[in-house]
């Protein structure tokens, strides 16, 4: 990126409390968020994602490290001097002001002329499709409408970066799906850098240009959704994003670019990759990558294992099968249903399991 980062965090740390209640919220986190990108901070609660957002907004100061906005350090600036705006989790709309007054609040605090504020308010109302509600009190709005007002209020200031703190978590499923598309549209139309915080991995994958997976105050992996989904760097990421099968394995032979691994149940598998003989690794595999065929005969054939279906869970277009492998070990497999919508296999069926070795990820922690 020639134009540099919109937001850059350099080795930022933040500790709350002291003594026994000391919590390291952020542990030397570094990240670069590019101009005009939809960047998501994803992680379980307590991973530090909201703290990182609050550092960028200026509500918290880092204990150490630096935060740069367009290359300028902003650590000393109070929130009202930073060209960033926040959409809060509970929206935090001003109950004593109308929708229009809420949206115009930022501009009026910066003493812009009345005509400019009015023009910006109607532009924003059109952008979030709330024309006609300008005079309403915020308490008279539905959750989805309040969400739109909160977005309009932040976007009216044309911030360099828009920070969104789990903005969709209070909405029901249908509305959430709708607002996800809406947010993508707004980001595309305004060209503003969005930093979005969520604990919902599906939301993160569907909306982001890039995302950072966080855990225990650290960023575990940064990348495009498909990179993170297809190539998780460690077991936490592989587990948190989507579903994974984890197979403990030991490397029996290491040749150039190819490893012969032995699984728990004694099965042997040749996997492309680098490693040392005797090393213990974890093989991760997505449930939908595994193929199932009716087992014609016992034994192993071309990377195929045999097992019995111990659980069958209908999921609409697919069915999840829990499989007990003949030699020991368990696998979860997701397989498409037949055209008439029924599951291809039943509980108790003996099946041959094809492990596509190219889709196996070798994890080392």
């Amino acid at each position: 990126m020639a134009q540099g980062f919109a937001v850059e965090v350099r080795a930022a740390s933040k500790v709350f409390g002291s003594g026994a209640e000391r919590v390291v919220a952020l542990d030397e986190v570094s990240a670069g968020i590019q101009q005009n990108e939809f960047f998501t901070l994803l992680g379980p609660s307590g991973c530090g994602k909201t703290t990182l957002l609050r550092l960028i907004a200026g509500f918290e100061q880092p204990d150490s490290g630096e935060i740069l906005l367009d290359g300028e350090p902003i650590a000393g600036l109070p929130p009202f001097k930073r060209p960033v705006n926040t959409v809060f989790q509970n929206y935090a709309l001003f109950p004593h002001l109308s929708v229009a007054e809420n949206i115009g609040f930022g501009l009026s605090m910066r003493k812009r002329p009345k005509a400019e504020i009015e023009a910006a308010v109607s532009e924003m109302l059109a952008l979030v499709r709330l024309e006609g509600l300008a005079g309403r009190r915020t308490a008279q709005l539905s959750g989805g409408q309040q969400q739109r007002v909160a977005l309009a209020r932040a976007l009216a200031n044309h911030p360099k970066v828009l920070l969104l703190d789990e903005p969709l978590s209070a909405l029901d499923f249908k509305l959430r799906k709708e607002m996800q598309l809406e947010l993508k549209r707004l980001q595309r139309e305004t060209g503003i850098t969005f930093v979005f915080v969520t604990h919902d991995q599906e939301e993160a994958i569907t909306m982001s240009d890039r995302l950072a997976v966080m855990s225990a105050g650290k960023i575990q992996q940064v990348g495009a959704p498909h990179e993170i989904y297809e190539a998780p760097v460690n077991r936490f990421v592989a587990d948190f994003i989507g579903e994974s099968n984890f197979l403990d394995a030991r490397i029996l032979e290491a040749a150039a670019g190819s490893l012969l691994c032995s699984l728990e149940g004694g099965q042997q598998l040749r996997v492309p990759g680098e490693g040392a003989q005797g090393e213990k690794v974890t093989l991760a595999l997505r449930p939908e990558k595994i193929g199932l065929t009716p087992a014609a005969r016992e034994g192993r054939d071309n990377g195929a294992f045999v097992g019995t279906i111990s659980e069958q869970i209908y999921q609409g277009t697919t069915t999840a099968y829990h499989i007990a492998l003949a030699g020991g070990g368990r696998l979860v497999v997701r397989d498409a249903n037949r055209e008439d919508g029924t599951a291809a296999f039943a509980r108790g069926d003996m099946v041959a399991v094809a492990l596509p070795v190219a889709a196996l990820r070798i994890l080392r922690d």
Partner: protein
Amino acid sequence: MAALRPGLRRFLGLGPALAMIGVFMLVPIGIIAVYSLLEADPYGGVEPRFSAEAYIQFFFERDLDDSLVFNPAYLVIFGRSILLAAAAMLASLLIGFPVAYYMATQPAGRRNLLVFLVTIPFWTNLLIRTFCWILILRDHGLVNNLLLAAGIVDQPLTLLYTNGAILLGLVYTYIPFMILPIYASIEKLDLRLVEAAHDLYANRRQVLRRVILPLALPGIVAGSILVFIPSLGAFIAPDLLGGGKKLMIGSLIQMQFSSSRNWPFGSAAALVLMAAVLAAMTYYALGPARRAAGEPGK
């Protein structure tokens, strides 16, 4: 029971509340109203003969030839009372708001302690607490002794028996009634709104003016009423700290029932005071409706 008509049932349900209002409010006010229209018994109490003399006395003076001359003396007392009560309200607000804000933004445990501390003065008799102010303010009291000892003044300042002393007494007595409602409304305030305002470029002063004050307004209004009205009718602070020289309406009324033995006049003054307060409150309460009517299209 099933035979009771809904109207009667509702009336029975309201019974206790109606009885409270009737026994503790309407009946006493009714007695006051009746007394104000009777003749005074020189030894206290009233003679059961109709007379409007009390109201006439409030506004007029009788000349030697029995003609009525307008007499503003009581209205001056009335005006002074309103000014002092308004000043007490304002001073309580200026001191009480920061105190309430500080209290409301403390951690929960300390908040309860502070509320407790604010209510502690109520545990001691008001008369005794006001007497203590005499000890503090008099010519050789605490303040003057300190000032003399420090060499700041060489003559004791006249602090006691002034309007300032009355004001001090009123603020001291009634400020908890300002602090507690404001505290309650700020404590309810979502502090994330303050964060949101900061995020939207409001500096500290703008946050106070545009977010905190509007949202604390119900508490401010309640506190102002709770300070203004009792200040208007107060007589302990005016009597003790004002030395009875600067009469306030409360002292005037109290005097009519004790030393002056003019119950009808005391009753009339009380009713005039009540009517004035009610009129002012009604005007205020109708304010929002009036503003809404005055600004069409908003």
